[in-house]
């Protein structure tokens, strides 16, 4: 257990620079109209942030520092702004700042000719600011603030090419789906607020001396604890694209590719996982079970959907969904450390893969359909650096030995197996699905990645060749990122992860810590699954074997896969359409009934239009109408005594008198 040390601002000022510098870059880019300068400045800032981050990591690694100051006070409750600098956030900062820097460099080339380059780099700055905010924030409220801001900057970046049809829709969808998640996050926060009266993470951890079980003095019931956990998880589901909220992520590929690399592969989507790791002690067992099954399901669904995508980026997007599912599942099974480890390794190789895809697209951007894999082929000769980086990253993703993915996947799988062993003592139930999905996904990951690999880089070019070399701005970032997927970065032994990354958490997994399964055997099993996957794809897509079989499968499941399990349709039927209908009903109701309370009376009344003519003949309206109709009619009644015949007046008057006399008795 590492003691959290409350420190003074003087010790932390450097840390403040990390979010503030990108914000500065954002402001500079907004207010200076020189877009080239903005791009340059942004890159310089990214570099500076990276170096600051390195400096911070070096100077603070190993300790846990906490700084907090009041933001605003309502009643007696103070909302704080604070920084929590422990190993987790330090590593995360390192990862984010590095990838951000590399993506920035990559973007210099990628976005070179874009008119709105300044805007692009300013958004990147905004995003970085928000992301660092999430990472560094010491309390859940502040986390939520940046959480939403990340969503916002993601909205901006996805919709960057707003003149086109797709990006605005995709960004709209991304934000709304994220909002649904955020709604859950908010509810979780409310429960935290009501029962713990604090959002501070160190405080909250203290209240949970045992994982998932708060101290009795809190007085929170199991039900509310679960609501809290599920709420927070719903937030993570939105950001980390977990079932059933994963639909936005593939669409988000409408944004510029470097953005996909940074945001939709490495950082933002990982924020959900990061947050779950942060609040892991607060999650009770039922919540974790839900998390595990959702994660496993997502991992499987994503992998399945990745199969029949033709768009190079969509494959990677679904792959991301799948891998995020992995991480979430890992948290659910009680191995947050493994999840975080996978987050880091995945961040590097997936960013690299996206940048490779970006490089491919950039290379082919004069083509008609530059993202369609079936129109590529043979690219290995034309963009060799990309090919190399892609190969490395892909192998890492597949989880083959000598690459980082092997470690992290192995850690997760072992966690899953431990969990299933531990929790299936009372008989095996649905929980068995979790390891099942986990292992199938290993195979599938390798298979769809192989498909992409062979379709893109092998075979005959289906595009018109041109002389164009990879720019160093492209090559260096992808190679650097790819190189971070080698085993030696993490561990000396290529087969056994003995890395500090698995030690960074203050807490270990909640489930037993001894290895029930020999890591070597597990590694062999998973590697063979991956190799099998690669082999199958080699046969199918390189050797073009068993095409008949492939077509059959495609016929059978292609639709399901290509449409991501028809999730969009399901959402549309279950949510979008009802809401759209509801709004029409309610609006109709508003117009007709609330506003036109009296329409019914009005229709019955032949003289309605004549009566209403006084103000406006054609008003279709409301309570006013009620009053006008009623009072108008009554008015006519009142006037009808006045028919101008004096003797009728007598009758009315006497009648009035008689009535009063009758009342008198």
């Amino acid at each position, binding site marked *: 257990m590492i003691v959290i040390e409350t420190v003074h601002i003087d010790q932390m000022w450097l840390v403040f620079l990390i979010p503030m510098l990108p914000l500065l870059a954002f402001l500079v880019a907004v207010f200076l109209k020189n877009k080239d300068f903005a791009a340059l400045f942004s890159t310089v800032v990214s570099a500076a942030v990276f170096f600051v981050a390195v400096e911070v990591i070096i100077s603070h690694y190993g300790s846990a520092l906490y700084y907090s100051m009041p933001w605003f006070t*309502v009643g007696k409750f103070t909302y704080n702004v604070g920084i929590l600098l422990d190993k987790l956030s330090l590593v995360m900062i390192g990862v984010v700042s590095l990838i951000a820097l590399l993506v920035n460099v990559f973007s210099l080339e990628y976005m070179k000719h874009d008119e709105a380059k300044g805007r692009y780099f300013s958004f990147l700055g905004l995003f970085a600011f928000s992301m660092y905010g999430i990472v560094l924030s010491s309390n859940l409220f502040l986390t939520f603030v940046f959480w939403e801001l990340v969503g916002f900057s993601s909205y901006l970046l996805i919709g960057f090419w707003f003149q086109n049809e797709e990006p605005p829709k995709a960004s709209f969808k991304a934000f709304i789906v994220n909002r649904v998640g955020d709604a859950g996050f908010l509810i979780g926060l409310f429960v935290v607020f009501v029962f713990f009266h604090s959002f501070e993470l160190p405080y909250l951890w203290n209240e949970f001396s045992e994982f998932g079980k708060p101290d009795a003095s809190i007085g929170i019931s199991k039900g509310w604890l679960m609501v809290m956990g599920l709420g927070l998880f719903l937030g993570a589901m939105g950001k980390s694209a977990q079932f059933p909220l994963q639909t936005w992520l593939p669409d988000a590929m409408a944004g510029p590719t470097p953005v996909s690399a940074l945001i939709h592969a490495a950082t933002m989507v990982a924020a959900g996982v990061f947050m779950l790791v942060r609040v892991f002690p607060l999650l009770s067992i039922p919540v974790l079970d839900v998390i595990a099954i959702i994660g496993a399901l997502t991992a499987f669904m994503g992998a399945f959907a990745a199969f029949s995508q033709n768009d190079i980026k969509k494959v990677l997007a679904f792959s991301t969904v799948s891998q995020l599912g992995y991480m979430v599942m890992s948290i659910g099974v009680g191995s947050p450390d493994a999840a975080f480890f996978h987050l880091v390794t995945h961040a590097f190789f997936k960013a690299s893969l996206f940048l490779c895809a970006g490089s491919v697209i950039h290379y082919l951007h004069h083509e008609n359909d530059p993202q369609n894999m079936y129109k590529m082929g043979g690219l290995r000769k034309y963009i060799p650096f990309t090919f190399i980086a892609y190969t490395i990253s892909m192998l890492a993703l597949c989880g083959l030995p000598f690459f980082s993915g092997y470690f992290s996947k192995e850690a997760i799988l072992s966690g899953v197996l431990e969990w299933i062993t531990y929790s299936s003592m009372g008989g095996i139930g649905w929980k068995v699905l979790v390891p099942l999905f986990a292992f199938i996904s290993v195979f599938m990951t390798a298979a769809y990645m192989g498909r992409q690999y062979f379709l893109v880089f092998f075979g005959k070019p289906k595009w018109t060749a041109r002389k164009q070399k990879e720019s160093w701005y492209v090559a260096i970032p992808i190679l650097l990122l790819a190189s971070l997927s080698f085993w030696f970065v993490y561990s000396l032994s290529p087969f056994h992860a003995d890395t500090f990354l698995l030690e960074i958490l203050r807490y270990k997994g909640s489930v037993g810590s001894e290895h029930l399964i020999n890591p070597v055997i597990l590694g062999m099993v998973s590697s063979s699954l991956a190799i099998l996957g690669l082999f199958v794809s080699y046969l199918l897509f390189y050797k073009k074997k068993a095409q008949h079989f492939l077509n059959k499968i495609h016929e059978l499941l292609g639709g399901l896969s290509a449409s991501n399990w028809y999730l969009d349709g399901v959402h549309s039927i279950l949510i979008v359409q009802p809401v759209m209908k509801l709004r029409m009903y309610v609006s109709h109701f508003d117009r007709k009934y609330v506003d036109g309370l009296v329409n019914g009376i009005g229709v019955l009344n032949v003289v309605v239009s004549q009566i209403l003519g006084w103000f406006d003949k054609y008003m279709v309206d409301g309570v006013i109408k009620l009053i006008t109709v009623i009072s108008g009619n009554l008015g006519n009644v009142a006037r009808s005594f006045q028919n101008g015949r004096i003797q009728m007046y007598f009758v009315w008057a006497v009648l009035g008198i008689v009535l009063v006399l009758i009342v008198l008795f």
Partner: protein
Amino acid sequence: MIENHLLSLLIFIPLIAGVVLLFIPETSSGLYKWITLGTLVVELILTLILLSGFDASQAGIGNESLQFVEKMDWINLSIGSTSAISIQYYLGVDGLSISMVLLSAIVLLIGVISSWNIKENLKGYFSLYLILTASVFGCFLALDFFLFFLFFEFMLLPMYFLIGLWGGVRREYASIKFYLYTLVGSIFILIVMIALSISVITPDPEIDIHSFDLMLMMDNANFIPDSVLSISSSDTLLGLSYRLWAFLFVLIGFAIKLPAVPIHTWLPDAHVEAPTPISVVLAGILLKIGGYGFYRIAYSIFPEGAYYFGWWIGLFGIIAIIYGALVAMAQSDLKRLIAYSSVSHMGFVMLGLAAITTQSISGSIFQMFSHGLISVALFLITGVIYDRTKDREISNYSGLAAAMPYFTVIVLITFFASLGLPGFSGFIAEFLVLAGAFDGAMSSEVIAIFMPIVGVLGLVLGAAYFLWTLQRMFFGKYWIKNEEWTLPDLTTREYIMFVPLVVMIFAFGIFPGLILDLSNETIMSFVEFVQEQGKQNMTLILENTK
């Protein structure tokens, strides 16, 4: 010297300026707007002086919390030799009203700037505007019920004419509708005012001096012991004690102004037909008077009503949030959409109020302030488009971002501020309301737990209609229905309106303490008062009317 009469100055400067305008000949009509602008600038400066002199740490509710008090006898009606009615000129600010005063000064100033391109009958327009200004300030500053009612009612007339004379196609209909609805509301309030003034007497042994002093009305001891509104009364009407009826009446009266859902239909019409600056004032301030009335009158005088009707208030708040959002989503007219978004946002005010916790009530007041600023920006946005094309159909535009990039930036920021993005004031407000409501639902059970949860859903819906509009109107390929429309980007004048607004929305989102601290102490006392007094009164009433 100036400190002693600061509040009076706030009211009378615009009033005098409005009258002075009437005597300036039409030949120098260019002067009108400058005089109005000058007056509003002075108002803002005075408000800032007021803020600088305001001691936010002064705790308490009722008399002890008041500052800058001005109190003198105004109308003294002696009835026979045994009693009298005393109407006072009684002004003061406390934490409940100070932020509203600031909001008024800001919004009204921006309103003037957006009135710059009013073309016809300038004299009438600007003098009515100044009179409206005076009554708005009066409404927030008055502490005598009669005085408050005077300003409350008096606001209607200028508004009626401003909508009816300078409005859109169906302006006459909209203006009369606005007038009638609000009048119905004020009749409800008037009924209670009369009943209260008869029941409440100044603690003076000599003769019964019936008073309209809102502060006196907060103390049960000042009620004539057996009057029907006193806490000891055992009289009921249809099984409900008179105090609860009175609470309900005041509530309905102000709910019309707010507006709450079944009685909101004046709002879209009034907004759609009103000229932009008037929509701005209407949404920015006038709706807030409804909310302010809840605090100042309904909750302060009849705290037990907060308990008795709290559940229903919360429910109607929730209905407003969801209903407003759904209806907004179905609108094809941008201004109507925004008008309904106001309905939705004001639902938060009701929800926050119903929960009676410090968080929720602070949030609700902050929501009024923040919505004041945001809705102003929203209506100015519709004004920008309407000024250029005289058309507000959402479907007639697409891809405006290409033609008006800077405008789009403003729209983007405003929309996101409105849907509650952190960093903008709306988020803090809505978070506080919902968190407080959650707390309230858990601890005091005045409102049900589903309410804040449904309220959170409202946030999603809010995001949906704003972003959908953004997507439809501003993104995509540039296309407008009528080729002849020209859509130049923002003018300098428009920048002058938008930039400070956006800066403020942003600043109050980053530093909510600027506003929250002003009212924090008062609200703590207020909540304590409502909770304690409310429960106490409730039990007394239930006992007495058994």
